[in-house]
């Protein structure tokens, strides 16, 4: 791919000065930056809550917090990490990268783009304010199963419901913006099958978002009606069914899981190809694998509910459908490995995170396969094995890919190189921390420790202690990440336009940092 880009010096405006630049901006780079910083702040808040949880679990017995507060921490940790950290980080990356990668000047609908972002701080202000309300914050887990979230919920659940509503509105607007940008703003010559994989991954992700966020809105609306207006959706006494809640929730929730991992697939494909100095192996199979995963994600939701009492046919259908997802996922892992095979690999920080992603995400994928087997799931269900599984795909999966992306594109964004030695130190601390935290949770889960409890039997004590030590190591090493990023933004060795030897794509053809409006006329893609 090569491109011809005109000079931009005559363009009409750069960034405005002061606070209003950020409040009134319509610029995809500003909005991307806002998303990324917001997501990092949420990552630290949600992480602090995780550390409260791990501190309580350091030893058996009740040590630090009340069980009621423990439940609130557990719920808010999940909600904040999913809706406040991982999703906004990916939207931030999409904002920064998609217009540059497709050769557009900005997102298709720049004002709506800013609205999508600014809803988020308000939504989380509302959700976090519930901590100070009578009855405390939501305490029913991030999956908010009825009737815990309806009949037995604290009064603050109403605020939680409306918070989820506006988060959903933000996600839908953001997703529409990404799809329209990709469909309508590509530079001449950039056919669909020439698009960078990150763009492909976001096209599919945005489609999933538009398809399932409204379903979540429907679920919380039914909760609201059940709680305050006398309906019986999730109440068997009136002819409804609490299990109906789980079906609707997971119809949203399973595609949501892929919303949090598909952009990671895109990122890792770019990074592995660059640092192996080879074309990505099997580009079109990568695209089709993501499309297959997205389609399958709509027909596997009930594997979260094997023990709830579904008909046998449903148990079998959802087991086989779930295992089918291993096929396209395996294609992707194979392609990443094949890309590295006989490449001239160097191990800069983004590559370290990307390789760790491939290995650790695969571990999370395999434990997912174990959980997909219905009879086995009857043993694993709601144990720490499940906690270990989804943290393996979300932390060294989604979060590592976000960190890899930050190290990879940060020199492009701010024009300065980060400190490679500190970057590698951050990687190794995170890598060790994450495994020490979550690997032992497989053991205590298989031994039978249930999730979502503040206290446990004595035989789980040793591994819980190890896990807590790992969690604090992982948490502390993110302060180093903050330091590295701030220092890089403030100054450092100047980055070249290409930044990395052999990096492919339109974003590497413009200066580092790129002009405020990257392409005022469309570049030509051959």
């Amino acid at each position, binding site marked *: 791919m090569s491109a011809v880009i005109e000079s931009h010096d005559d363009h009409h405006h750069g960034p*405005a000065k002061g606070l209003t630049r950020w409040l009134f901006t319509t610029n995809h780079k500003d909005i991307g930056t806002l998303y990324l910083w917001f997501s990092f702040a949420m990552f630290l808040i949600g992480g602090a809550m995780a550390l409260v949880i791990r501190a309580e679990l350091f030893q058996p017995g009740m040590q630090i917090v009340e069980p009621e507060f423990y439940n609130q921490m557990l719920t808010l940790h999940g909600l904040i990490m999913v809706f406040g950290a991982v999703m906004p980080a990916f939207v931030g990356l999409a904002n920064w990268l998609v217009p540059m990668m497709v050769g557009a000047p900005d997102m298709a609908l720049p004002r709506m783009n800013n609205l999508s972002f600014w809803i988020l701080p308000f939504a989380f202000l509302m959700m976090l304010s519930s901590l100070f309300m009578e009855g405390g914050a939501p305490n029913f887990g991030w999956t908010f199963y009825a009737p815990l979230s309806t009949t037995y919920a604290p009064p603050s659940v109403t605020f939680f419901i*409306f918070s989820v509503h506006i988060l959903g509105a933000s996600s839908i607007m953001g997703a529409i913006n990404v799809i329209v940008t990709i469909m309508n703003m590509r530079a001449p010559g950039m056919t669909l099958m020439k698009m960078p994989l990150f763009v492909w991954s976001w096209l599919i992700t945005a489609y999933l978002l538009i398809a399932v966020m409204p379903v979540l809105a429907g679920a919380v609306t039914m909760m609201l009606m059940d709680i305050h207006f006398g309906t019986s959706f999730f109440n*068997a006494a009136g002819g409804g069914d609490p299990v109906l809640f789980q*079906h609707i929730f997971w119809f949203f929730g399973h595609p949501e899981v892929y919303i949090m991992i598909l952009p990671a697939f895109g990122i890792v494909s770019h990074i592995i190809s660059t640092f192996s100095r080879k074309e990505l192996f099997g580009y079109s199979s990568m695209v089709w694998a993501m499309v297959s995963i997205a389609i399958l994600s709509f027909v596997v939701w009930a594997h979260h509910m094997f023990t709830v009492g579904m008909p046998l046919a449903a148990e079998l259908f959802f087991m086989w459908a779930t295992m089918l997802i291993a096929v396209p996922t395996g294609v992707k892992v194979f392609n990443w490995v094949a890309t590295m095979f006989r490449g001239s690999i160097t191990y800069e920080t983004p590559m370290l995170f990307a390789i760790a992603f491939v290995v650790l995400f695969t571990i999370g994928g395999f434990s997912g396969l174990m959980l997909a087997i219905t009879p086995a799931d009857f043993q694993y269900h709601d144990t720490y094995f499940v906690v270990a599984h989804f943290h393996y795909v979300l932390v060294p999966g989604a979060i590592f890919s976000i960190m890899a992306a930050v190290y990879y594109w940060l020199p492009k964004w701010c024009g300065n190189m980060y400190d490679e030695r500190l970057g590698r130190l951050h990687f190794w601390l995170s890598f060790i921390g994450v495994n020490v935290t979550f690997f032992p949770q497989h053991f205590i889960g298989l031994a039978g420790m249930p999730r979502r409890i503040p206290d446990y039997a004595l035989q789980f004590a040793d591994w819980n202690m190890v896990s807590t030590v790992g969690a604090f190591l992982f948490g502390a090493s993110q302060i180093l990440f903050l330091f590295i990023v701030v220092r890089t933004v403030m100054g450092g060795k100047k980055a070249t336009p290409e930044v990395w030897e052999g990096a492919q794509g339109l974003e590497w053809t413009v200066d580092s940092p790129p002009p405020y409006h990257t392409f005022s006329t469309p570049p030509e893609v051959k």
Partner: protein
Amino acid sequence: MSTYEKYYVPEQSRFPIYAATSLFILVMGAASTINALGQPDSMAKYILYAGLASFGATLFFWFRKVVQEHLAGLDSAQLNQSFVYGMAWFIFSEVMFFAAFFGALFYVRTFSVPWLGGEGEKGLANMLWENFQSTWPLLTTPDLGAAYTVPEKSMSFPGWDKILTWLPLWNTIVLLSSSVTVHMAHINLKAANKNKFNIWLGVTVSLAIFFVFLQALEYYEAYEHYGLTLNSGIYGSTFFMLTGFHGFHVMMGGLMLSVMLIRSVFYNHFKPDPHEHFGFEAASWYWHFVDVVWVMLFMFVYIL
């Protein structure tokens, strides 16, 4: 893929932050008001009103700005195409919102109510309320506690002899006609018959208002004469939520079409060229979508 010469990027704008702030006031007010139901002296509803007013005002000025930019020729064919895609995907998101409620309806009709009545693979659930029998429309509840109002009759097809007094049939006729009239308006707009466009669009808006009136009448009948309320168990829940959200969408669609009518009659907006009337076309798409949802409702809520 774009083949456009020049891109359009709007200047900095205050609308997004105003919209986000007023939306925040709106939902804080809504949640506080709902939590304070039953406390008539609560001030929460004024926060809700302030939120509604400020959010409505922001949207009004925002849309006005977009229209002004278009009339000033600031936007491009490419931006217009972005609006087209954007509206299409927005309607898809609305389809999925209704899918959640239709999914709930199909689930309770196919699984949970029969199981509670002792039928099917999970008929074991009948041990909860052993006298409960599964029927649809469900005019009773498994637990006949005081919390539920038991309706006398359902809103379903009452039989051929009473068909002319059956409101949903008239609702269907009104709404299907309005889909035809909005299409007639579109045809006349493309043929540059501005007067006929205004008349057909006016007829459509009138039919929208008439539909909402009939729906209100139906709700009045349900509450006052049939004893069917939100409190009537899962039948009342699904009935009112599906028809209620549909009715709300009819009001939104009717509002959009009214705005288009005002723009056309008083400001002489819209020309035959498709790029000069997408505002109207988007509203008409939305109207057809609302119509399709009603056809689904008519089949699965009222007839089958």
